[in-house]
């Protein structure tokens, strides 16, 4: 997994609540057997017309926010299906951070397992950033994982965000859960031997 420390970037705003993983990557694109290429179909049904041409009014198709590495979304982002393809699609498109006031559980785990940082901020701060970005698309945010801060560089306003210390350590060092579990193999065998038959 890629290491994460700090990031400064413009922001792509998606002011919609309850964005589910079927919107992030519709089921018909889940037939691939590797992790690559999902970025092309990120938000496919909002992004493309039936003939495959881009929908002009969808935010991913406007040049205003091109190159943003931070996705800003309404509350309860990533609800629904457990498909990790949603995280692969967001990472594949080029995002490194998703900011919202609330994330669905499975999505949050999937994001962290792919080096994509979900940043939870207060609803008020989220509304402020949406307003700032809408007014000035060049607004940049800085995410500092070590300090656990998200800063709006336009006005310097900052908020602390929470992250599990273990997960933070994994991201800072670029380690996977699976590396950790593999190092605990003897404990697994010991558990299997000793445990009461559930």
């Amino acid at each position, binding site marked *: 997994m890629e290491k994460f420390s700090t990031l400064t970037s413009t922001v792509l705003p998606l002011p919609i609540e309850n964005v589910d993983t079927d919107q992030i990557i519709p*089921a018909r694109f889940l037939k691939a*057997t590797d992790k690559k290429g999902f970025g092309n179909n990120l938000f496919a049904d909002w992004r493309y017309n039936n003939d495959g041409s881009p929908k002009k009014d969808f935010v991913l198709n406007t040049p205003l926010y091109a190159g943003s590495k931070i996705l800003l979304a309404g509350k309860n982002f990533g609800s629904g*299906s457990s498909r990790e393809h949603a995280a692969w699609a967001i990472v594949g498109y080029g995002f490194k951070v998703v900011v919202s006031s609330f994330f669905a559980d499975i999505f949050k785990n999937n994001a962290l397992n792919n080096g994509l940082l979900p940043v939870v901020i207060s609803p008020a701060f989220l509304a402020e950033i949406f307003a700032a970005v809408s007014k000035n698309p060049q607004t940049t945010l800085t995410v500092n994982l070590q300090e656990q801060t998200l800063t709006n560089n336009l006005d310097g306003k900052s908020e602390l965000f929470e992250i*599990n210390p273990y997960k933070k350590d994994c991201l800072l060092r670029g380690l996977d859960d699976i590396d950790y579990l*593999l190092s605990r193999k003897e*404990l697994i065998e010991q558990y299997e031997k000793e445990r009461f038959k559930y």
Partner: protein
Amino acid sequence: MKPTQQTKPLSTQGKTLFDKIWDAHVVSSVENGPTQLYIDRHFCHEVTSPQAFNGLRARGLRVLRPDQTTMTADHNTPTLHQDKPVKDPVSRHQLDTFAQNASDFSMPLFYPLGHEKNGVVHIIGPENGFTQPGMTIVCGDSHTSTHGAFGAIAFGIGTSEVEMVLATQCILQSRPKTMRITFDGKLRPGVTSKDLALYMIAELTTGGATGYFVEYAGEAIRKLSMEARMTLCNLSIEMGARGGMIAPDETTFAYVKGREFAPKGEEWERKLAYWRTLKSDDDAVFDKELRFDAARISPMITYGTNPGMGMSIYESIPALEDVDEAGRISFKKSLDYMGFRPGEKLLGKPIDYVFLGSCTNGRIEDFRLFANYVKGKKKASAVTAWLVPGSWKVRKQIEEEGLLDILTEAGFELRQPGCSACLAMNDDKVPAGKYAVSTSNRNFEGRQGPGARTILAGPLVAAAAAVSGVICEP
């Protein structure tokens, strides 16, 4: 970070059902971090597993406990002509990859298309006795919460976690908070556990139980059959819960007993004695408690594009003023997609498609309810109906009980098992703009096909819509 061996909590505080099962599966705890949790049963399907098996290959790993993983093809499979090669080459490649992985990693419990044990993963687990009380169960599918109906900790995981389970039979998880939802009183006749679940999700919203593991309790829950309990636990994820569970009782034990992979003889007695201890202690404290009166629940439908947008079939869609300001853009977007207006009633609204099936409502009891309702009636000619059993065993039982004759007589066709129109990965797609009354679990935009408009309901409301052609009282 150093692992620490789990020590028993010193507190004498009573334990919840969740605590008892969780604590029995802790291998170690990461300091200030998640728990290394042992997994008893892993279910695996073709869509969320190929990248996990590739991960094992890349790291040169084997599957640690092949007999603790059950594999079935269900998501990306046709519901007609399963004996013939799958037409779509991309789908066929995914199914071939699944078979290759089963073979390369010597997986003994592999049920491909056409196998007598094949079917939707959350249907075949319980029906073959893989799912048992007290277990930890995971699958790369959010509706794994279904298995909680047996008094198990069951939850959906991502593909990275599938790889962890295959490699180590463990997963790293943060301990969720606990919630108890009690349903007092009795459900009224004609009201199913699907209605109960849609009612609850509408009350809590789609994110209302995020971060929690829910235990369902109360008189109305005790009276539910195992299959009805599975429908309820299945839908726990739709209010954001990590999972849902119900303490096992005589209904549970009677269901499990005698199934192929259930314990037998002396082992059965020993396990049964343990299973009887699996209930929340009287003095157990939950992080959150909610109570509902089951007698107040009516047949339910959804009107929007998430499962929390539900109402009784007699009610009207909320007016714009009744929606909180921050949510109005999403609410309006949702109704525009559905072609509905705020304040509108949906009784009498014509519909185009009916789907009976999925891990939510694809079991024999659902087909009994549906068949019993349509008996002696005729399918409305304008309605296309897809009746998709959850497994080959369910299909066989439909035939043996004479339900197939009733359905055929009423103008319905029975298809072959799979997830089908629930997520429309196969050809079972509802066309853009058409209305589908669906017994599945999600009404998200495009879920049943690009532009498809989904109205979630129970099997009785679906049956009534199928014969009348409109949304009506069953």
